[in-house]
């Protein structure tokens, strides 16, 4: 049984809908002059942001969708090709790998980020100077991924800092990190870069949990795992699910670190470490001799976005829980 159960106050959906309906009725019948004025200013205040959003985000998104059904080099007139770009994607091993890599980053990277973030959160919760440590962990998040990518190049390359450091300790030369394990290093790098943000989010949620719950745990002789399983996780569940959606969307947009770490001044990284974002760049502007295949790249973007949307919906449904109030 959860130690937090006695603090639960779970409203039923019927109660909720009645409350909302009652609120609406009350609002309609007794609207104050201030509320009326506020209602009148709703659209004038909203419109500029809505227009900017429509022009800068929705417009390009819709345009990308339309372009995905054309063959277009960005210069001439788009030539309608129906679903050809989509069928081509299915047969393109480079795209399949890039899409697979996106999913690996999303799932494996995501699990690693949350596992390490929770572990750090649990350690830091009871630690002195935790604010300082939290800032240290957060530090990579505020540095440009390009700078970190360059640093990681120095660390992991042959005769780099890692190899030299190990060598000075008498430890024999390790594997060819950049040559044979580039994608693994990229995932580790991405986890490291993003860790600070999720530690901060989770710690903010954990800080809200009343201390007496942990004290009760201590009295009951609960282990660290039991404290996590029966107190921390249930009481931070809403934050965890929101953070998971944040990671899902964020992982889709990962670009700079892979590009700067895997590529060179003029070249794209090797195709076996491309994710969808790099595939799109590689099929438009990337490399020494850009492909300018805007229709094909747009189709790749549409497929990736749809896949991630499905993933987010499934994730939200799978993680839906009644809220716990405490």
């Amino acid at each position, binding site marked *: 049984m959860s130690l937090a159960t006695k603090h639960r106050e779970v409203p039923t959906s019927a109660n909720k809908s009645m409350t909302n309906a009652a609120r609406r009725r009350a609002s309609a019948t007794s609207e104050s002059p201030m509320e009326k004025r506020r209602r009148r200013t709703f659209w004038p205040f909203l419109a500029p942001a809505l227009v900017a959003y429509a022009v800068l985000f929705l417009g390009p998104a819709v345009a990308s969708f339309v372009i995905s059904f054309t063959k277009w080099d960005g210069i001439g007139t788009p030539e309608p090709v129906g679903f050809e770009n989509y069928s*081509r994607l299915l047969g393109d091993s480079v795209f399949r790998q890039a899409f697979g890599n996106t999913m690996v980053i999303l799932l494996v990277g995501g699990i690693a980020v949350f596992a390490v973030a929770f572990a750090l959160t649990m350690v830091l919760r009871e630690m002195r100077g935790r604010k300082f440590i939290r800032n240290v962990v957060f530090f990579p998040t505020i540095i440009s991924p390009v700078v970190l990518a360059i640093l990681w190049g120095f660390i992991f390359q042959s005769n780099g800092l890692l190899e030299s450091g190990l060598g000075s300790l008498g430890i024999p030369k390790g594997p060819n990190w950049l040559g044979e394990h580039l994608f693994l290093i990229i995932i580790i790098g991405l986890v490291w870069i993003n860790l600070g943000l999720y530690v901060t989010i989770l710690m903010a949620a954990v800080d809200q949990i009343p201390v007496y719950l942990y004290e009760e745990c201590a009295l009951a002789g609960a282990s660290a795992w039991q404290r996590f399983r029966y107190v921390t996780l249930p009481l931070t569940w809403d934050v965890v699910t929101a953070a998971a959606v944040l990671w899902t969307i964020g992982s889709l947009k990962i670009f700079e670190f892979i590009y700067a770490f895997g590529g060179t001044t*003029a070249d794209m990284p090797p*195709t076996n470490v491309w994710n969808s974002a790099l595939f799109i760049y590689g099929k438009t502007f990337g490399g020494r*001799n*850009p492909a300018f295949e805007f229709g094909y790249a747009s189709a790749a973007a549409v497929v990736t976005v749809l896949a991630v949307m499905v993933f987010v919906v499934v994730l939200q449904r799978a993680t839906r829980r009644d809220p716990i109030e405490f």
Partner: protein
Amino acid sequence: MRSIHTTRAGVLTAFALTGALALTACGGGQASSSDGSKDAAAGDFSGETLTYWSFWQEKEPQAKAIAAAIDDFEKATGAKVEVEWQGRQMTQKLAPAMRSNAPDVVEAALDNLAPIVGDGQGEDLSSVFSAESINEKTPLSDAGVDKYKDLVTNDDGAAWLVPYSVLGMGIWYDANEHQDLADSAPKSLDDLAALIKKEGKGSVALDGDVGFYTTLWVESILMRELGAEKFRAIAEDKTGEAWKADGVVAALEKVTQVVPPEAFAPGSFGSKFPAIQEGWATGKSTFLLNGSWIPQETATSVGKDFKFASLEIPAGATGEANTQIGLTGYAVPVKAEHKDLAKAFIRFVLEKKYQEDYVKKASALSTREDVSVPTDLKQLSASIKANDPVLVMDGVNVDYAGIVPEVFAAPVRNFLSGSTDAKGFANEIAATQANYWKGQN
């Protein structure tokens, strides 16, 4: 770009479309040329403004040389040149600009410009090759620039680029350390293999993360073993099966004879560019197969006694040395507003005086044969002069965007590093090539 050398039926429709577009767009320009185009040699352009996008950055020596020519051009013609030193990312900005806001002159390497301007979107600049200039009453063809005209002419017969600088490829070494090499340069691939073997393990520097550099070794030797056009034919095979032919596998085995995996400097396949190149500059390895930009690129890294020299990759079974080059030059978009002014400007910058200045400041090779050759580039220049040049990779990287990273890079890297043998490489590249061509239409 898919026009140069390309015979694929699939692109004929595209040519028809782009050709029609080009004709439509050029209609006004051509009429104005015949009716009242200004005489480039007369320099009558006062009041006009030329927009010029360069792929050099303002602080680079190349830009400084061109800026001096721009000043003189403005004085001589009364025109104003609005130059934007955009750097290497220029071509990314150029593609969207080509639709409505195209600059009058663009300048970049052939393979950068080809996908944007080469496919019917560039003005035919054939007339510039035969034109006089303000200070020069002889055509460019007299200076030997015509030598490269075929390489920049597309299937419509339009010379869409006027090249001013030629980039050569060679095996670089320190002539001060190896004084005997100039006189005992290898005459055959077997000689080269023996030389590399004699120098010992790790004598060849290669930044294995740069697909263009790794591919240079394979394509150079294949071109010499099989012939230039043959390499293009293999790369254009839609199934990729051409790589598995006995003759091709034998030529691939020659690659491993010349540069076996142990010949490459330690870390060549596990470092970040330019770590290995810098190692070569500081004496950690003997040879570096690379371009004519190397003396300038490594100038601050080499010791004061370092003397740049290069060997050409010698002839193989075909008996041809196949001098491989790249080109940098000027193009004029068909939608440019001031085409006559643009042509006059290009011709002006290619005057001997300004090319001398360019060669001196940039330590580069000019396409003009009557200008000086930097000491470091004498061997390369002699090789280019002595042979009919072919484009690096026989131009397949120019004609087929993305072919190096998507088809060549990974298999070649595995091959040179010893992860696969010749047959394994042939199988691997056949798969990546078949996948690539499946998507081209």
